[in-house]
């Protein structure tokens, strides 16, 4: 599947003009700290001193235990939220307001249930002021690219989870973003559907090459997809280590790359680092339970 995508990208329109935009998509976080006020009035530190650089067109996966501030990092890159300290900059400019040329994919799909598949995908151009006809023509093309031709007039609730994800993917990519932020986008899918979606994502990504930050719990998924895996510590999260994934591209099916010796080596290596954090996170949540158990 990946090879057909690669072929299409060569003939596809606009790949070159987009690479110009991609040049501007260097993401840099330096000394970023984010604190929230809790309802009780105390401060909660979500992330602390995060330094991270994603080169234009690179696929970066962020892994870490639950609650380490992975999602917070994404919202700060998108401009939906501001850091309490430190700077987030995109293309050399500090983020101020919504970062232009960004698309976000959430774990729960952010499709409007009252709009059809076509209208949902067309939202990006419509919000940017494109005429309705043009937006719909563009959307039709993207619906086809995610293999949903024939479902244009369905509503989201009529689709399966995997199909809804593909609609989300088309809706996220239609604006031809230079940055794609993904917050556990396939977390709610079953294993097979997840693998299919990963393949589909890789194929589409190789066509347009936006910079990607992909947050996940799943280390295998991270290594299979990414150029760079960032391991974050238990919360307040900070960057523990960054690993370069030197598996060649195009990678082909993610189900098969898992048996590649180099993949296993990388997995073993990164898991050593991640395991400590996961165990520490587990110890935190497990403590009260064991104390309870002792008493009873």
């Amino acid at each position, binding site marked *: 599947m990946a090879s057909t995508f690669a072929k299409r990208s060569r003939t596809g329109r606009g790949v070159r003009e987009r690479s110009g935009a991609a040049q501007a998509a260097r993401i840099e976080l330096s000394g970023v700290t984010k604190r929230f006020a809790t309802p009780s009035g105390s401060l909660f530190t979500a992330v602390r001193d995060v330094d991270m650089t994603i080169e234009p067109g690179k696929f970066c996966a962020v892994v870490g235990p639950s609650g380490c501030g992975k999602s917070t990092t994404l919202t700060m890159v998108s401009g*939906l939220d501001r850091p309490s300290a430190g700077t987030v900059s995109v293309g050399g400019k500090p983020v101020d307001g919504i970062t232009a040329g960004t*698309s*976000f994919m959430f774990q729960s799909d*952010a499709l409007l249930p*009252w709009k059809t598949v076509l209208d949902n995908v067309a939202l990006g151009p*419509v*919000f940017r002021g494109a005429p309705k006809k043009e937006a719909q023509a563009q959307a039709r093309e993207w619906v086809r690219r995610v293999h949903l031709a024939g479902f244009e007039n369905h509503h989201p609730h*009529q689709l399966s989870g995997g199909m809804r994800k593909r609609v989300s993917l088309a809706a996220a990519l239609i604006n031809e973003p230079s940055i794609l932020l993904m917050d556990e986008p396939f977390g709610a899918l079953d294993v097979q559907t997840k693998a299919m979606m990963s393949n589909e994502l890789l194929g589409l990504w190789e066509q347009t090459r936006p910079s990607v930050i992909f947050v996940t719990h799943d280390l295998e998924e991270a290594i299979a997809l990414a150029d760079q895996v960032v391991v974050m510590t238990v919360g307040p999260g900070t960057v523990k280590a960054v690993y370069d994934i030197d598996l060649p591209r195009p990678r082909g099916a993610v189900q098969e790359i898992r048996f590649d010796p180099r993949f296993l080596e990388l997995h073993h290596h990164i898991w050593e680092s991640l395991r400590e954090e996961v165990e520490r996170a587990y110890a935190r949540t497990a403590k009260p339970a064991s104390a309870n158990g002792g008493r009873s």
Partner: protein
Amino acid sequence: MSAVPVNRSYEPAAPGAIGDLAAGEEAAVAADLRHSTRRRRIWTWAARIGTLVIIMGGWQLLTSAKIVDPFFWGQPSGIVKQLGNWAQHGTQYGSIWEQIWVTFKEAVLGFVFGVAAGIIAGVLLGMFQFLADVASPYIKVANAIPRIALGSLFTVALGLGTPSKVALAAVLVFFVVFFNAFQGVREVDQNLLANARVLGASKLAIIRHVVVPSALTWIIASLHVAFGMAIIGAIVGEFLGAQKGLGLVIASSQNNFNPNGVFAAILIIAVLALTAEALIGLLERRLLSWRPRSQANAAAA
């Protein structure tokens, strides 16, 4: 691959057994189901008509036998006679159709203004926390006062004509719609908002494409109650002082000790309200056609 053991112990049931059963019996089962559904519907209607006959017949008999005094409680035959009389000779304020039209017009105008104001206020306060904080004590107070009493004020200030009734109906409608619209806006999925913002939507585009459609389920649910409120506003407004309208007909029937007139007017209003309810139901089905079938049915029930 060949080393993987394959479990072959599973044997399907005798071929054809299930297929044979399906061919003949499926049609029979379907016919049976249709039959029982129809029988059930016939019984439901029979019971409904029976209930009506018992209530109306009992009322007629009790009043004919003077066990219940028809002078105070009216009589079905008298109500029908009264309706015929109005249709032929009109009321003391002109033809009955004119009275119906006046009340209907007041209720619909009040409904339209009240709904529009309720949606606008609900969306604004739902969107802007600061406005909501400023307005919330006033809204609580306004909601606590007996709004029906504002009718007296409107009658004095706006006169005996249509405007005072429209104002009262609109005030009653406003609060019903406002609270629903406000709540609907508050319940909008934060993910949808964040997504629209990242895609570059302006505040206005967010309201149009995300907030209002999302709140529409709540708003439309309130419209059923709201139209009832509009009719109450129109009728009470006419009680308080009017020159035409069904409320006036009821008030004058009351003064003439004519319970049949009161019942006849109530019957006409009920028909009006049911017609409006059906129209709102149609609107609901049109606007919310995107909802999954089961959810839409649950709302309609």
